[in-house]
């Protein structure tokens, strides 16, 4: 493909001597980590908009008790697709996009290790996104099981369920290939003179996340395949009528599901571990302990899964085990928070948009961690399981945690990617409108859950009305704020103040030694590392 393109006379654009096809074929055939990173990020944003629209349908219906806008069946489909699309379509691809863009530049590599497989990992995503969204329009509609796909519901639904299963298969393949690529790149393509214990923290978090993904995506794929064969090929893994056990699915799902929450959280930790030191103008506090703690969080995340299943009828000993283990895993996670705070201690801080989002992350993720701790207590969780308290918990960790960290990453690296500074005033507006509306939307959900409002229902008892109305107003505010984000990003792509190679005074690392925007091919020759360069 590349050979068909004539060699442009006179290489006008510096070292940008790629023979790349023009127009749409450039994007379809590209093996360039920057192009692929860009596509991941735009795909993620598109899915964020689709999933966000679904969330607003959910919140509109919940503005008042009773049924106003949608049928209960359709409401359940929105719940399911919102969850699947946000987790697998928005958050995970966003961080793979950051990895593609930044890891080669951070470690001084020319590209990802498997450039062609990289193209394939990305191009698997759109079919999966289309399968999920299109499943709304097939007979019987989309899966209505919730993103957890529990049987027996998931062995009863229509073809929309099969589409969701195939989408999960495809997304899983994409994640596995992406992870193999990231792990191999980090292990093999680091510039000479960059030992593992000196590489940037974002690379460390992705290295460990890559292993987590390789370990658990096949488990999820196995679980949904077993649902598929239960549905169509006469097996009874989960079908009690045939001697199967629906609870077995929950065990398999959460053996994937709990590590999955760290797959989402760890790269977010990585981003914050770059942004906070940059704007506090101090190196990260306790780099090594951070690396070890992240590794141990990853290991322990495999031994706590049944804290999602306290009410399925486990023996008391099982409940106690999972309670103790879950409470203990919160220790290394909590220590991370102290690391970031200690990094800021006596730093000379400034509060540009990336830092604001990183601090927003720090505050709100901590709240989410605390509510997680509350839920890990079996006696408490028996009351709170499947209530809005759980919904509040995971939105604090996933939205105010992972998503805010993704925003921090975009603002932090946008000058590098585009060569232009973004509009700082509008960026700060985006932060403040987001954090205020986020809390209006989700803080009241703690109260709703404590008062007993169940999750995943389109209607509710009258006494829950007020907090639901507040929450809906906040959710629409949050949705609108994200249009501002789109505007700020587009504005920076189209122009703006020229960004220097290193727009942030306190930033460190190889990526800032490249011009902004970096050439299409960077670090074709490995950089020479000195004692201080190349450390997070």
């Amino acid at each position, binding site marked *: 493909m590349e050979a068909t393109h004539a060699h442009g006379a006179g290489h006008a654009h510096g070292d940008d001597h790629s023979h790349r096809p023009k127009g749409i074929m450039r994007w379809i055939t590209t093996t360039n980590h920057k192009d692929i990173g860009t596509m991941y990020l735009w795909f993620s944003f598109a899915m964020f908009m689709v999933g966000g629209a679904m969330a607003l349908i959910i919140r509109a219906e919940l503005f008042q008790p009773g049924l106003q806008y949608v049928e209960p069946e359709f409401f359940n489909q929105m719940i399911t697709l919102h969850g699947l699309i946000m987790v697998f379509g928005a958050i995970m691809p966003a961080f793979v996009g950051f990895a593609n863009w930044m890891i080669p530049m951070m470690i001084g590599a020319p590209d990802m290790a498997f450039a062609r497989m990289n193209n394939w990992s990305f191009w698997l995503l759109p079919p999966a996104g289309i399968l999920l969204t299109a499943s709304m329009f097939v007979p019987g509609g989309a899966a209505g099981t919730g993103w957890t796909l529990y049987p027996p519901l998931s062995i009863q639904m229509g073809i929309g369920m099969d589409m969701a299963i195939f989408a999960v298969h495809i997304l899983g393949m994409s994640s596995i290939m992406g992870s193999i690529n990231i792990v191999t790149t980090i292990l093999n393509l680091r510039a000479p003179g960059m030992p*593992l*214990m000196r590489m940037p923290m974002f690379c460390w978090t992705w290295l460990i996340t890559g292993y987590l993904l390789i370990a658990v995506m096949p488990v999820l794929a196995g679980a949904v395949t077993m649902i598929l064969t239960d549905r169509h090929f006469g097996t009874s893994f989960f079908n009690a009528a045939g001697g199967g056990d629906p609870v077995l699915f929950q065990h398999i799902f959460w053996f994937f599901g709990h590590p999955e929450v760290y797959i989402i959280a760890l790269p977010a930790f990585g981003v914050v571990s770059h942004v906070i030191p940059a704007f506090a103008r101090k190196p990260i506090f*306790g780099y*090594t*302990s*951070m690396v*070890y*703690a992240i*590794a*141990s969080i990853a*290991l*322990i995340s*495999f*031994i706590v899964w049944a804290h999602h299943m306290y009410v399925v009828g486990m023996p*008391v*000993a099982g409940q*106690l*085990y999972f309670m*103790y*283990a879950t409470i*203990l895993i919160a*220790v*290394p996670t*909590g*220590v*991370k928070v102290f*690391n970031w705070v200690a990094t800021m201690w006596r730093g000379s801080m400034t509060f540009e948009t990336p830092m604001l989002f990183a601090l927003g992350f720090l505050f709100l993720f901590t709240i989410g961690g605390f509510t997680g701790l509350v839920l890990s207590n079996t006696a408490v969780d028996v009351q709170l399981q499947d209530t809005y308290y759980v919904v509040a918990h995971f939105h604090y960790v996933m939205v105010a945690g992972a998503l805010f960290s993704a925003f921090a990453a975009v603002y932090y690296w946008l000058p590098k990617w585009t060569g232009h500074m973004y509009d700082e005033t509008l960026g700060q507006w985006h932060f403040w409108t987001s954090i205020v509306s986020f809390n209006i939307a989700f803080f009241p959900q703690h109260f709703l859950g404590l008062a007993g409002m169940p999750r995943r229902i389109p209607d509710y008892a009258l006494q829950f009305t007020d907090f639901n109305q507040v929450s809906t107003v906040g959710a629409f505010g949050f949705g609108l704020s994200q249009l501002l984000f789109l505007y700020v990003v587009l504005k920076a792509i189209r122009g703006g103040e020229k960004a220097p190679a290193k727009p942030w005074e306190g930033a460190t690392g190889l990526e800032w030694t490249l011009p902004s925007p970096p050439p299409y091919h960077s670090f074709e020759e490995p950089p020479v590392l000195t004692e201080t360069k190349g450390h997070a």
Partner: protein
Amino acid sequence: MGERKAGPLQVLRTVLSGLFGVRHRRTHEEDAAGLRPIQVIVAGVVVVAAFVLAIVTFVHFVATK
């Protein structure tokens, strides 16, 4: 880099402080010099297995009448 090999005790200490999340700079520098990744990984898996066993034992203790 001097190829001093780290003993099992030092590996164990590293992994335990990793689980907790806090580390002295000085001990870290010793680690950086002497530890091989495979040692840490093996020790990590062993310690997590021991951790599970310890909790299970403890649970057994509190949950039997």
